[in-house]
């Protein structure tokens, strides 16, 4: 008895090992290409050692300066002078300066100028010498900026991403009006994504219903038609929308020919929010149709007959019998489309113009143009948290195990 139990336990372990062996390549792949970069980016959003590494002594000495009693002591000036010179020699000054500059504008060039001027200076008094080189050294704000960027672990990026800032006193307050961008952009992204999700649902539900009610051969054909967009490049599809929607485009021409609008009243349907919404709805529609279809396929068509035989009008039968049963598919499709939409990048970049940009375009901007990866990572982190919260809410309300993804 015990022997056979042991044998079965061993067999069980072997089966588990085999199962693990089968998924191991995927796990390694996902680990290398997804988890690691993601983790690196998230670390980057809170960890930035560049300034701390370049100006260690300065940072140490600044700890004793509370910022209230004017400028720091001569020793601090001496330390920063020495470390700026070293950073110049080691060619890290650019990175340091750009980080400090993000906290306090205009410091990049001043720091570079100071370093150049200090190259020939061997002796103090540093405070006076530096004050003469550039007035920034007589401004406590400069020191606050150096102090702030000198923390290895920083909440700066997250505060920034949420339009907040930390005052020298340590208090967290909202950014001044003109510097608030990201919260508005997050909101816009959420609203646009919601609109796209609703549009996809409105357009996708009848299609999915039709496919689910068709005999198998026709359902297959229709499903292929739904998937046809996946066979063409996203870029081509998006460009096609430009051709259709632009001011001199097919749709406007048609409207003019039909006399619905006149020639100088052509509608702006692309390079703005309309363009983003139209093109993204088109791109994301299959992600709504497929989960809906897979759930609807499982709803017996006899249920609608049963409802009718029990005296329900078609609309009643739909609302009370069909719709509730299709909800897992609605949930899955909506969640999928919404999550894809809030992270979508290419389409708004191409057809969004200036007011059709979403948060991911801002992330891309910080990754590629401003090179503020810390902020980009923090914006991405906020997005990730948003998605996880959404998922948790969905799980609480509907239950993830009821999600009909396939």
């Amino acid at each position, binding site marked *: 008895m015990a022997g056979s139990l042991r044998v079965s336990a061993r067999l069980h372990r072997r089966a588990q090992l085999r199962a693990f062996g089968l998924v191991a390549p995927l796990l390694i792949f996902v680990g290398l290409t997804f988890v690691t970069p993601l983790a690196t980016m998230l670390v980057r959003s809170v960890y930035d050692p560049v300034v701390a590494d370049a100006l260690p002594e300065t940072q140490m000495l600044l700890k004793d300066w509370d910022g209230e009693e004017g400028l720091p002591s001569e020793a601090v000036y001496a330390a920063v002078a020495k470390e700026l010179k070293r950073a110049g020699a080691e060619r890290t000054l650019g990175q340091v300066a750009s980080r400090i500059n993000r906290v306090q504008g205009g410091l990049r060039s001043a720091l570079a100028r100071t370093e150049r001027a200090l190259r020939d200076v061997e002796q103090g008094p540093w405070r006076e010498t530096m004050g003469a080189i550039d007035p920034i050294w007589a401004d406590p704000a400069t020191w606050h900026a150096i102090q702030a960027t000198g923390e290895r672990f920083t909440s700066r990026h997250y505060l920034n991403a949420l339009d907040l800032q930390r005052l020298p006193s340590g208090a967290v307050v909202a950014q001044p009006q003109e510097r608030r961008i990201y919260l508005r952009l997050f909101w816009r992204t959420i609203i646009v994504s919601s609109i796209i999700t609703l549009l996809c649902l409105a357009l996708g539900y009848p299609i999915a219903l039709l496919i689910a009610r068709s005999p198998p051969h026709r359902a297959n054909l229709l499903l292929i038609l739904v998937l046809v967009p996946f066979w063409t490049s996203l870029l081509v599809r998006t460009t096609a929308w430009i051709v259709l929607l632009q001011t001199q485009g097919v749709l406007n021409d048609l409207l003019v020919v039909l006399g619905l609008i006149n020639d100088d009243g052509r509608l702006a349907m692309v390079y703005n929010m309309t363009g983003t919404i139209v093109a993204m709805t088109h791109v994301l529609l299959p992600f709504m149709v497929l989960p809906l279809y897979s759930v609807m396929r499982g709803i*017996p068509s*006899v*249920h609608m*007959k*049963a*409802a*009718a*035989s*029990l*005296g*329900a*009008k078609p609309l*009643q039968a739909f609302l*009370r*019998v069909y719709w*509730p*049963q299709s909800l897992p598919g609605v949930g899955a499709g909506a969640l999928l489309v919404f999550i894809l939409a809030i992270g979508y990048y290419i389409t708004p970049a191409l057809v969004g113009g200036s007011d059709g940009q979403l948060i991911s375009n801002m992330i891309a901007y910080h990754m590629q143009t401003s090179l503020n990866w810390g902020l980009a990572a923090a914006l991405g982190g906020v997005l990730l948290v948003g998605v996880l919260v959404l998922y948790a809410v969905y799980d609480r309300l509907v239950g993830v195990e009821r999600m009909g993804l396939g």
Partner: protein
Amino acid sequence: MGNRARTAHVEFRGISKSYDGRTLVVKNLDLSIRTGEFVTFLGPSGSGKTTILMMLAGFQSPTAGEILLDGRPIQDLPARKRGIGMVFQNYALFPHMTVGANLAFPLEVRNVGAEERTELVDRVLRLVRLEGFADRRPSQLSGGQQQRVAIARALVFEPELVLMDEPLGALDRSLRDEMQYEIRRIHRTLDVTVVYVTHDQQEAMVMSDRIAVLREGIVEQIAVPEGLYEEPERAFVARFIGESNLLKGRVTAVLDEVCEVETGGEKVHALKVVACETGDPVTLSIRPERVAINSVPGRYKNEVSATVEDLTFLGDQLRVRLTACGRSDFIVTIPNIVGHSPLLRGDSVRIGWTALDCRALNHERS
């Protein structure tokens, strides 16, 4: 019942149905169902049973003919307005609603007040013996319980006509037996008209007032259960209902009610059921329990010699396979009553039956 029992509740008049415009799956159906009657359509798969129910329920429209409900044509009446209760083959209970909600549904869409609703739901739950199950989900019930709920749902809004499409098809044998009696009890309690569909002849026999045997869209015979068994009018019915020895033969003489038929080298006398003349091919139907083995010579009109091929003891009866009338699968059953003479394989015997128990039916190609 008296007067009420004689009025036609449902009437099919010349109903034909084709789905594809070429083949008719229901052919010229004429049938009148009385109020309170339990009528079963019995037939093999594909014989058009469901199609007939769907036309009556309003989910299919006839290609030709008309259906009358209480004397009024109903082709323009949508399903929901026909007020017919329907039990579907796979229950079709709404999985996202509790049993109580499923039962309340037809009442809610009819705007029945909350109080009356509760009362009706309670009453129907008692009728199907499911008190206390109102808060369960259909998925938390056994197959038999789900079936009861489906029946209850078709009854709760008090329709006068209830259709059931193979409601017991998904249940196992013993549960099916139990539910047959249950449905019969409910029918008697409520005095509703029931149109029932099944391919199981025993089921049809247990419950029905009348059975319509269906084959390829044609009603072969409609009769009370005993009538179908005792007096089949078509070879198909004789084969489909109970067991029968079906012998192919040719008429050699006709005298009034009886005819003489030559089959497998024997001349036998048979009741002339099908219209036939000398020389016509016919099928003879002889029930296995109506044949006697080694009885007093001269007692039966038909007596032929046979050889015992096989014996099977079935508890309540002995099943004997014989070679007779040129066939080696002639079956005779003998009730297990103490005292019958022991038979052995290979015995030569005489078997006999009356002309009344031998029915000359239509010739069947097969």
